């Protein structure tokens, strides 16, 4: 599975990658980006199956990155999971309206990250069958 992790903290990126590994998700092909701009460049240059992204980042934040991905015909189908510390139901609804498929609230467990990946894989399989 080709995964892109977008977060301005290299520590957080390493924690997400490690947790994916503990959850049994292959992490050999994990790409990393430090902000939304780098995230879009990584998407344009690599086949990516799922994006995990933070919201508050310098240069380009997560919301702007998501809006640009969803407006781009070549990128719009990629599943996006927001990883954030915020627990506001209002904010989560706003993100879903932007086309975010998953939300992972920090701190998260390997089981939670596995559930999100499995749910997205199921949706992707259903879409392929349709």
């Amino acid at each position, binding site marked *: 599975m080709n995964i892109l992790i977008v977060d301005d903290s290299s*520590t957080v990126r390493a*924690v997400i990658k490690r947790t994916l590994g503990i959850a049994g998700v292959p992490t050999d092909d994990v790409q990393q980006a430090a902000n939304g701009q780098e995230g879009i460049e990584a998407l344009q240059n690599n086949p990516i199956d799922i994006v995990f992204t933070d919201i*508050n980042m*310098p240069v380009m934040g997560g919301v702007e990155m998501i809006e640009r991905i969803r407006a781009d015909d070549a990128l719009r189908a990629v599943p996006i999971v927001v990883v954030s*510390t*915020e627990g*506001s*139901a209002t904010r989560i609804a706003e993100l879903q309206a932007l086309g975010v498929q998953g939300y992972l*609230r920090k701190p998260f467990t390997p089981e939670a990250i596995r559930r999100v990946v499995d749910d997205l894989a199921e949706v992707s399989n259903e879409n392929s069958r349709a």
Partner: protein
Amino acid sequence: MKTVGLDTLGEVFGEIVEQMAFMFVEAIEEGDEAVPAPSECLIAHLKFGGEFSGKLSIAVPTEMCAELAANMLGEEADDPDAIAKGTDALKELLNVLCGNLLTAFAGEDPVFDLGVPESLPFSPEDWEALKASPVTVPYIVDEYPVLLHINFGDDG
């Protein structure tokens, strides 16, 4: 409000530290002078705004940061990578604590905007001054003394 708020602070802090770094939090009883100021410490601050605004701060011994990073990353505390990522790990702990604390205080409806965590070196004298504040709560995290300080208001 203050008592309820500080109780909630301790509960959420304990849960977050255990989940993120597998470390255990103990409250220090009021008047307990057994915990001296560390010789080298760091403080991290995070401002928040929304339903209410303020600033949450955490002060820790510098050596605790590497252990925090090591536990979060599955490394040894003397691993150069854990040492390099120690300050970043402290800021991430503060970020996660603040987000979860605001939900605990205000529920899941309000939207809060969190700033970017900042860290600064902190002297033992600064430590003692912060510890004396009525809105500072001291804890022991494993064997390390930790101070949490929360201010509500725009000048937080």
